[in-house]
């Protein structure tokens, strides 16, 4: 009796509940109004400015495609997102696997570490990496003390810095869902593989990996999409020569006041992001988009 329970929670007299077709819609009004006014409207008008400012036309899109500077920004964005995704998967897969099979005390400890890093303020994490990776930072000092290197390595303001900082941020987003995928697999399947004579190597590539692949792919896609739109960490760890799309948008608005071009760059970022999310939902319908819960 969905209508009865509905009215009960909405604090109407239960007896006075005629079966209504559209009950509950009114309760969406405040949140719909909030999002319409402060989400849909401003985003649409930003995108509109890309073809109306300063005059009507596609000139901003032509500039984005035609200028070497902007093409390089797009290339950097895709490069950083790809490198971060690969490193995150390479580090994250063994951890998710380990977490799924370790004694629960240890897996709880790993989970605690992941959650602590995930919930620590983003700027604090980025600042910490700036400190650790700088020329006089702990990592360079230690490597020099051990005689591994003679000169401090350039670890920030380049691709290395962004990759380390971004991998740190993205790791929990891959490990947590992947851990659930592997945990849900039945160990008997692998015992069966062993009984049938599979070596460890075969059991991994022919059984475990294919079974875990949907989890890996959906996690990797999510990491890739999230990396594409990141602003803070690349801006602080990446340096000017490795500008990404999100930084470009911020700079166009803040320093150059070029709203038209910023709108066009936003549309490019939005189309790529939403396109990949649509792909994710199509490929992995059950879990897509609900990672935060």
């Amino acid at each position, binding site marked *: 009796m969905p209508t*009865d329970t*509905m*009215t*009960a*929670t909405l604090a109407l007299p*239960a007896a006075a509940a005629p079966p*209504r*077709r*559209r009950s*509950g*819609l*009114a309760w*969406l009004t*405040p*949140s719909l109004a*909030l*999002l319409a006014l*402060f*989400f849909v409207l*401003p*985003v649409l008008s930003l995108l509109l400015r890309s073809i109306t400012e300063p005059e009507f036309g596609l000139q901003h899109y032509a500039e984005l495609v035609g200028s070497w500077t902007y093409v390089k920004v797009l290339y950097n964005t895709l490069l950083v997102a790809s490198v971060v995704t690969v490193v995150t998967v390479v*580090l994250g897969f*063994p*951890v998710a696997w*380990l977490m*799924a*099979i*370790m004694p629960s005390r240890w897996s709880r400890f*790993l989970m*605690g*570490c992941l959650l*602590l*890093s995930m*919930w620590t*303020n983003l700027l*604090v994490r980025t*600042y*910490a990496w700036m*400190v*650790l990776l700088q020329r006089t*930072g702990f990592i360079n000092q230690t490597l020099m003390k051990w005689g591994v290197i003679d000169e401090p390595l350039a670890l920030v303001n380049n691709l290395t810095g962004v990759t380390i900082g971004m991998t*740190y941020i993205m*790791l929990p987003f891959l490990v947590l869902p992947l851990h659930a995928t592997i945990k849900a697999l039945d*160990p008997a399947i692998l*015992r069966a*593989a062993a009984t049938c004579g599979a070596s*460890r190597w075969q059991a991994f590539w022919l059984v*475990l990996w294919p079974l875990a692949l949907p989890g890996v792919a959906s996690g990797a896609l999510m990491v890739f999409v999230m990396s594409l*739109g990141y*602003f*803070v960490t690349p801006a602080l760890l990446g340096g000017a020569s490795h500008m990404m799309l999100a930084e470009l948008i*911020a700079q166009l*608005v*803040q320093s150059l006041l070029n709203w038209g071009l910023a709108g066009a760059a936003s549309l490019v*970022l939005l189309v790529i992001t*939403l396109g990949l*999310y649509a792909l994710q939902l199509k490929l992995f319908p059950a879990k897509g*988009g*609900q990672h*935060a819960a």
Partner: protein
Amino acid sequence: MLLDHDRLGLPLRLSLGAIGTLVVAFLLAPIVFITLLSFGSSPWLIFPPPGWTLQWYREMWADPGWLQAMWHSTRVALVVTALSVSLGFITALALVRGTFPGRALLRGFFITPMVLPVVVLAVALYALCLKVGLTGTFVGFVIGHLVIALPFSIITLCNALEGYDFALEEAALICGATPWQVKWRVTLPALRLSLFAAGVFSFLVSWDEVVVSIFMATPGMETLPVRIWSALRQDLSPVIAAVSTVLIGITLLFMLIAALFKKDDDHGH
């Protein structure tokens, strides 16, 4: 075999264990180092520090800018939490229990602010707030953070309501409870853990929000992340390490409270 820790075989067990240890070190290193360095006496954040000091904390307290930014952040986050949980609750209730067409689609729509690159939302909101004069105001910050925090509340509470057995309410009604009693004494207590979780998510999302805030801020009204951001663009002063340690402490406190709540709930059932 591969899903049984004791039968992994020694080489595999050792290599997985090594990667696990490495990743734990990777995860904890920034947090541990910043905490230690905030007590170190080196202004260039050399590790190990030549001596230990509370100087950076004193500088933080002496600077009214840091305290003011913390106060602004807290006020904004509290209002955002209250609005996000209450709006999220009625929205989730309607989405899970309502009987109107297009519910799945609407549910997807409510998640979009989380999916969209924040920088696009930030620039768009900035343009709107410039027009109506909301930049640098309390209301502007609350609106920006609320748009980002609301999806977290809605997802958490939708999941909770889907797992909630509505027959409980009917049972209470049959036993003679009034609808208000049902709401206050059955539904809310049953969902208290999820409401609390939605609150924690919303608070942390608002408290940590950087991108929208950078655009929204004016020198007169900035939140803590904005102040850290501007400080970071100048130098890596150890005062930021002290502020960071305070923030890490707050995160740990929240995780502890959440863990206690969870334990309490495990015992309760």
